[in-house]
């Protein structure tokens, strides 16, 4: 699904990703953890093609294509979805209208007919029910005046409607109350399927209590500093990142979950 090799990227001339390798197979859920400022959001932005994030080395292959060659909207239309750490407000643009424009742009790209508003609304209602999102959010402008949690829910709602192949969730769990956290987890779990992949950027184990990842990685110093199974997240929760920097490489809860630090 996604194959990142020796990726280097800089922002404003400042080198942030320094040779990052990551393989995400179809159907897998990967969690990426790591200290503040280590480059997790940068990775998401680079993958999504944000302007100003300059790739200075390495390669990214997505579904067999050279991802870095594609325009940001093409990446989206090819099924790459980024749930933003800080979702953006677009005043005056109706949330439903926005989402329909997005879905139809993607459908058009895939050569599918556009959905009219009736069909779209039907789809939306189904998703809302599942995610326990209030109707009210539909009628408001995109993220405008939404609470932090509402914005995150809205990201998940968009993801549910757009049904991406690869979803990158950048701290979608941060700042959520327990119900919202469950709703986010529900959204992700429903999306899980053998042909879809999910990358969760998170600081907390509690999300992983609801969404069991296949792999956990630690991003530090612009690289994947350690990789392992679900147990790695638990250890990070307990011990923080210090042990990694100390060069402490260790097995985490047994053979099956071997953590390997490469820093």
């Amino acid at each position, binding site marked *: 699904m996604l194959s990142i090799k020796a990726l280097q990227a800089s922002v404003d001339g400042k080198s942030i990703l320094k040779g990052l390798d990551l393989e995400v197979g179809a159907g897998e859920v990967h969690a990426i953890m790591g200290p503040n400022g280590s480059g997790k959001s940068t990775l998401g932005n680079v993958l*999504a*093609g*944000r*302007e*100003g994030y300059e790739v200075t080395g390495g390669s990214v292959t997505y579904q067999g294509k050279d991802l870095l060659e594609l*325009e*940001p*909207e093409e*990446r*989206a*239309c090819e099924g790459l*979805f*980024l749930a*933003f750490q800080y*979702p*953006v*407000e*677009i*005043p*005056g*643009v109706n949330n439903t209208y*926005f*989402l329909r*424009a*997005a*879905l139809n*742009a*993607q459908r058009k*790209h895939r050569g599918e007919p556009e959905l009219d508003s009736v069909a779209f609304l039907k789809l939306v209602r189904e998703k809302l029910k599942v995610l326990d999102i209030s109707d009210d959010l539909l009628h408001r*402008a*995109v993220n405008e005046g939404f609470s932090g949690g509402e914005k995150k829910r809205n990201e998940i709602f*968009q993801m549910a409607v*757009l049904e991406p192949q690869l979803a990158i969730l950048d701290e979608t769990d941060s700042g959520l109350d327990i119900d919202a956290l469950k709703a986010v987890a529900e959204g992700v779990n429903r999306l899980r399927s053998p042909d879809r992949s999910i990358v969760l950027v998170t600081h907390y184990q509690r999300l992983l209590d609801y969404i069991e990842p296949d792999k956990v990685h630690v991003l530090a110093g612009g690289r994947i500093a350690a990789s392992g199974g679900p147990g790695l997240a638990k250890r990070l929760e307990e011990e923080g990142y210090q042990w990694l920097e100390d060069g402490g490489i260790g097995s985490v809860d047994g053979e099956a979950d071997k953590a390997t630090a490469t820093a």
Partner: protein
Amino acid sequence: MSTANSEVERRLEGRYKHGFVTDIEADSLPPGLNEDVIAAISVRKNEPQWLLDWRLGAYRKWLKMREPHWAHLEIDPIDFQAISYFSQPKSDKDRPQSLDEVDPKLLETYDKLGVPLHERAKLAGVAVDAVFDSVSVGTTFKEELKKAGVIFCSFSEAVQDHPELVRKYLGSVVPRVDNYFAALNSAVFSDGSFVYVPKGVRCPMELSTYFRINAAETGQFERTLVVAEEGSYVSYLEGCTAPMRDENQLHAAVVELVALKDAEIKYSTVQNWYPGDEEGKGGIYNFVTKRGDCREDNARISWTQVETGSAITWKYPSCVLRGDNSVGEFYSVALTNNYQQADTGTKMIHMGRNTRSKIISKGISAGRGQNAYRGLVKVGKGAEGARNFTQCDSMLIGKRCGAHTFPYIEVQNPTAKVEHEATTSRIGEDQLFYCLQRGISEEDAVSMIVDGFCKQVFRELPMEFAVEAKALLEISLEGAVG
């Protein structure tokens, strides 16, 4: 006054001897401005003496006035002697003979705006039979208006058919020497529209929706007067979203609105004159004086404007809130792209008690466009309990454009409440990326964001106008990003 008149008469007589008669019957007057020219305009229009006097009074004052330079505009000096102050619409043989001869780019724009085919030819200045669908439609509506007692006609017709009304209200809101451009207009105005809604009548349709095509050639010194009698209501639409062919560089219009007791006037404008080319060459200079007078209690006037055209726009639709509890509103979208400059805003003059005003201004600058909001909120001594709310937002697209806000507030009554909010945002690179990341193309994203930004204003426009205005912004912004 009387000596002045006889002087003009003498001069006119003198001219007649030298064949001036044939001159004034010609299609246009030679360039230049003097009292003879004004008299010739007046004679040509068969105006009563008082109106000629009125024009001349304005002219004499104008001679002593100076062009205003306080606006945030860079303007090359205008040579008022190089302009022809009276010209008939071009004769058919000078026009393109069919749409095939019209600039394809213009036609493309009409296509995008969804301008009906039969209107395109007229807008593009093509010589076609004067019979359009819109004319026959127009006649039906004229009948309906007549039944309701609403007078809606050209200003020249009103001068002939309803001189007492014109005389009573002309210049009663915008004094003829109000400002430099208003004085010039008062001296030489060509034509415009006249609306009179009698007491208690709710005008049965949006005025000018069906007539806008025919009003397309009212000339560069347009004069409009709208009078709403007690308890009446009228909504007036001015302008047209389709870019109009116009060879006059200088436009100086005056619009006066009079709302009497409990009356309401909604005045909507879409202005899309030629803005000049991408290098800033050519384009219309648009200096407009628009003012509404809430002359009696509970009157209500609301201005809504979408300004995307002209090289230079200088325009401050205002409300004088004289009657107690009267309400003034101003909703504006002004867009400048390439080298366009706009200095626009409003004045709300609170005089009556419990008068309320609301100002929503949205300025969009792209390219090297410069956009200034200039607003005055004045609360007089007697305006107990007056309220104003002003919201003034600017959006910048790209890095070479500018937005400027000049709010002036003068409050002489301590019970007044005046609120002002202002924001400036660069079209969010982050908003844009958010849209792209969801699969929306850059062009669609920009128009979506801009449309959202203008929502509060578009909401005030009559439905079909709002749709056109939206399309218009999209076209005006083409190529602004990326």
